[in-house]
């Protein structure tokens, strides 16, 4: 029971920690940790999501917020945008220039990030300045561990290509 409480406390202190990292930091065996996580998920104290070949763990009480962050981080361009914004606020043309993308593509991704509430914007004259509106530590923790599988990278490239072609998100 003590171990389970330790696991829960560690996840609460480090939301978005990966399964592998949690096992490492708490010095727990895989089977042991799997058992405690199963119990914690069943009791509704923790939830986990698989992304890019890693299982990320979050405290249940902030599920909505973290779900949005995972959606935002699920494509390469958005990850890059969020990493750039983690370094300070930027406008659309700065983002487009640093990413080597068209303004239309950046605009599409920014609309999605704004809709998710992960990014906020403010007007400064004629320019729109973007900044992050999420827990930066959690975001960085997820990005550091993120290792997409080869087909996930291809899917991300396909999404970017379709956005360049002019597709607009449906949902």
């Amino acid at each position, binding site marked *: 029971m003590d171990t389970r409480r330790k696991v829960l406390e560690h996840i609460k202190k480090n939301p978005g920690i990966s399964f592998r990292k949690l096992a490492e930091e708490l010095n727990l065996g895989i089977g042991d940790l799997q058992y405690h996580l199963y119990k914690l998920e069943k009791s509704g104290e923790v939830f986990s999501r698989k992304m890019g070949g890693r299982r990320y763990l979050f405290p249940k009480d902030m599920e909505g917020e973290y779900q949005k962050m995972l959606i935002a981080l699920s*494509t390469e361009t958005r990850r890059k945008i969020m990493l750039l914004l983690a370094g300070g606020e930027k406008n659309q043309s700065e983002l487009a220039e640093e990413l080597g993308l068209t303004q239309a593509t950046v605009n599409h991704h920014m609309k999605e990030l704004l809709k998710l509430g992960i990014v906020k914007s403010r007007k400064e004259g004629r320019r729109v300045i973007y900044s992050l509106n999420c827990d930066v530590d959690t975001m960085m923790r997820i990005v550091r561990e993120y290792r997409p599988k080869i*087909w*996930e990278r*291809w*899917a991300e490239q396909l999404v970017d290509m*379709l956005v360049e*072609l002019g*597709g607009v*998100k*449906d949902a």
Partner: protein
Amino acid sequence: MLESLNLVLSMVVLAISVLLAFISWVAYRRSHLKSALYLLVAFLLFAIKKVCESFYILTSVEREALNVTVAVFEILILSAFFLAIVKER
């Protein structure tokens, strides 16, 4: 000899189209872009068309019926590609 080579090549084409359909599906799940959905449909139709064509090599389906089926599939595939490019610009 040529017939078995044809069959092997058809299997390779089928595998590639299924892989592309899978990538389109992953892309759609992540982005909800309708274009990705049309691509998924196009690649799946392409895979089905290939199965129909390979079926012809293995059995003795009437040639005319196969030609019509393949032509219908080709129209559907091209329409799906067209929609993937132009839809929701």
